C-alpha cells in the first residue's frame, strides 16, 4: 500500500486528546478491577490499607474444596465444548442454505433465528426453564447444554451466513465440473474454506457460553453449575455471602479458565486465514 494513502494519526486535535483521556479512564477502571480481584484473592487480610497484610494461596485451596471447583471447572469446560460442537454442526449447514438459497418462507426462518439473539435471555429463559423442569430435566447437565444452544445456534448461523456468502459460488460449480459429488464439494472444498469462519464463530460461542449467566442459572443446580453461576451463588448465599476473598479466588480461576480456553482455541485459528489472503490478492491485480 502506498504511503500516501495512510493518514497520519491526528495528534494535535483537542477532540482526539479527549478520546484518549476517555480510553485511559476506561483502562484504569479495567485494570483496577482485574488487579484488585487478583490481589484480593492472594491477600491474607485486606481492610483499610492500600495492600493486604501478607500474601497466601490458601484462599485457592479453600475455595477449591469448599465449592468443589474441580467439578465446576469440569462442568464449565465440558458444557462449553459440547455447546460449541453442537452449534457448529447444527448452525453451519443452516447458514449454508440461508447464504446460497432463496426459498419461500426464508424471511420467516431468518426471523426465527434472529429472535433468540435479540430477546433478553430471561424472556425465553423462564418459560424454557419451566419446560425443562416439567420434563424432569431441571438441574441436569442436559438442560444446561440445551438452554445454551438457544442463543448459540442462531449466533453461529448469523455469523456464518455472511462468511459463506463471500465465498464465490463459482468455486462450488468448478468443483462439480471437476467431477466432485455434493458430499465431496462439502468435505474437500467448502469445509477447508469455512474453517477460519467456523473457528471464529466457535470461539465466540465458547466465550459466550462460559460467560452466559442467566440461562444456565435458571436450570442448573449442584453438580451442573458452571463457574459464573457458582460465583454468583457464592456472592448471594444466604447470610451476606461467602468471604470476599474466596469469591475473588474463584473469579481468578474463572478468568484463568477462560483465558486458557481462548489461548487453546486461538492456536488453531491463525494458520488458516486463507480467504482473507485470497481476497487481498484479488484486490492487487
Amino acid at each position: 500500500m502506498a504511503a500516501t494513502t495512510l493518514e497520519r494519526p491526528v495528534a494535535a486535535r483537542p477532540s482526539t486528546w479527549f478520546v484518549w483521556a476517555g480510553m485511559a479512564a476506561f483502562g484504569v477502571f479495567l485494570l483496577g478491577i482485574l488487579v484488585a480481584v487478583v490481589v484480593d484473592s492472594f491477600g491474607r487480610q485486606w481492610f483499610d490499607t492500600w495492600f493486604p497484610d501478607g500474601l497466601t494461596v490458601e484462599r485457592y485451596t479453600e475455595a477449591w474444596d469448599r465449592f468443589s471447583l474441580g467439578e465446576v471447572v469440569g462442568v464449565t469446560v465440558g458444557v462449553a465444548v459440547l455447546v460449541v460442537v453442537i452449534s457448529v454442526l447444527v448452525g453451519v449447514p443452516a447458514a449454508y442454505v440461508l447464504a446460497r438459497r432463496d426459498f419461500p418462507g426464508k424471511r420467516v426462518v431468518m426471523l426465527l433465528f434472529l429472535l433468540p439473539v435479540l430477546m433478553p435471555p430471561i424472556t425465553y429463559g423462564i418459560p424454557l426453564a419451566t419446560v425443562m423442569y416439567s420434563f424432569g430435566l431441571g438441574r441436569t447437565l442436559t438442560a444446561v447444554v440445551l438452554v445454551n444452544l438457544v442463543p448459540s445456534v442462531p449466533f453461529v448461523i448469523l455469523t456464518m451466513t455472511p462468511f459463506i456468502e463471500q465465498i464465490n459460488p463459482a468455486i462450488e460449480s468448478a468443483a462439480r465440473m471437476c467431477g466432485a459429488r455434493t458430499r465431496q464439494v462439502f468435505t474437500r472444498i467448502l469445509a477447508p474454506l469455512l474453517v477460519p469462519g467456523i473457528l471464529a464463530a466457535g470461539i465466540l460461542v465458547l466465550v459466550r457460553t462460559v460467560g452466559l449467566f442467566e440461562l444456565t442459572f435458571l436450570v442448573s443446580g449442584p453438580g451442573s453449575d458452571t463457574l459464573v453461576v457458582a460465583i454468583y451463588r457464592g456472592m448471594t448465599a444466604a447470610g451476606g455471602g461467602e468471604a470476599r476473598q474466596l469469591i475473588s479466588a474463584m473469579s481468578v480461576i474463572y478468568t484463568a479458565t477462560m483465558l486458557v480456553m481462548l489461548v487453546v482455541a486461538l492456536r488453531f485459528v491463525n494458520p488458516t486465514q486463507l480467504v482473507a489472503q485470497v481476497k487481498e490478492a484479488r484486490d492487487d491485480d
Partner: protein
Amino acid sequence: MSDFESLELRGVGRRFGGVDALAGLDLTIKAGEFVALLGPSGCGKSTALNCLAGLLPLTHGEILIDGRRIDTLPPERRGFGMVFQSYALFPHLSVEKNVAFGLQMQGVARAEIDRRVRQAIALVKLEQHAKKLPGQLSGGQQQRVAIARAVVLEPSLVLMDEPLSNLDAKLRLDMRTEIRRLHQSLGLTTIYVTHDQEEALSLADRLVVMREGRVQQVGTPDELYESPASWYVADFMGYRNILPATVVSVSGGGSGAEAVVELPGTADGGVRLTGRAVGALGAGDQVRVAVRPDDFSVVPADGAATGAAIPGTVAVVEYHGREHAVSVQTGDVMLHARSATPPEVGGAVRLTAPVERVLVFPESLDAVVPLEVAA
C-alpha cells in the same frame, strides 16, 4: 472420457419467473469445433453455457451427445471441463492440487495423476509456480491454472465463460493467443461465451450471436462479418455507423436489391444514400443503415466522388497507428470513418462508401430468421 461425433442442442430453453432467459436454442457442434456464443450481458449466452454444463436445469428441450440424452445428468457426470470468468480456483489448494482435483475425483492412480498434472502445468507454462497458492498468482496466471484444471481431464467438451474479461487489455491479447494455441494443439471441442466481438472473431470457428435469449445468427466469422443478418448483428460485428433511415425506392426485390434511403437529421435535412437491402424491403419502410468505419472514405468536399456522398465537418481525429479514426458531424448525426491521412479538424469533407458495403436492414429484429449455415 470418450470423444463424441456431435453434440446436439434441440430447442433448449430456460424460463425463469415467467421470463425466457433462453428459448429455442438449436445448435449442432462437431467434435473439435470452437464455437463462440456472442452477445451483450443478459442475452442468454451464459444461461446457455450453464445449461450445457448442467449447473442450471433446462426447462425446455434436450441436449444429446451422439443421440444420447445428457441433460438429465448432474454436472459432475457429464465429463465437461469449464473455465469461469472469476477463475473459481480453490483458494486453499496449490496450483498442482487445483489441477489434480478433478483427476482425484475420478480416482485416477497417483502416478498417473502426477504425470498428467505436470503435463497440464507445462502446457500453460506455470512450472515454476506449481507449489504456489492461487492468491499468490497474477490474474493471467490464475486463469491459466483454471484452463489447465479444465483440460487436464481431457474433457469431451470445454466450456469457457468470459474467461478473459477480468484481465487487462494486453494480457487479454496474450491469453487469446494462448487459448487458440491450446485449442489447435489439443483439438478440444470448445464453447466460448463472450461479449467481445474481436475475441469471438479471432478465436472461433463458428459464432452464435444471441439477443434476448434467442439466436440472431449462426455462422463463420467471415460470414458474420461480411453479411450480418440484422443490424443487431452488424452492430456487434463492428458496423459502428448504424443509422435510422427511410426507404425511398427499391430496385428489384428481396435480399441483395439496391435500395435508396434517406437519412433524417443529416446535412441539408436528409442525405440520400444507396445501399444493398438485407431482407425484403419496400418504399417507405423504416430501416437501419449499417456501415463499417473502414468502408467510409473521407474525401475533400470539393473532390470528385463516385456514388452517393455525405457532406459534413470533421469533428474529431484520433491517431490509431497506421490510420486515423475520423468522426464527421453531418447535421445532428455523428459518423465514424477511417482515413490514412488525417483531415483537418473543422474542415469540410464528404464521406463515400461503395454501394455493396452500405447494408440496409429492416428496423424490426423479431422478424429475423437465423440463416442456416452448414458448418
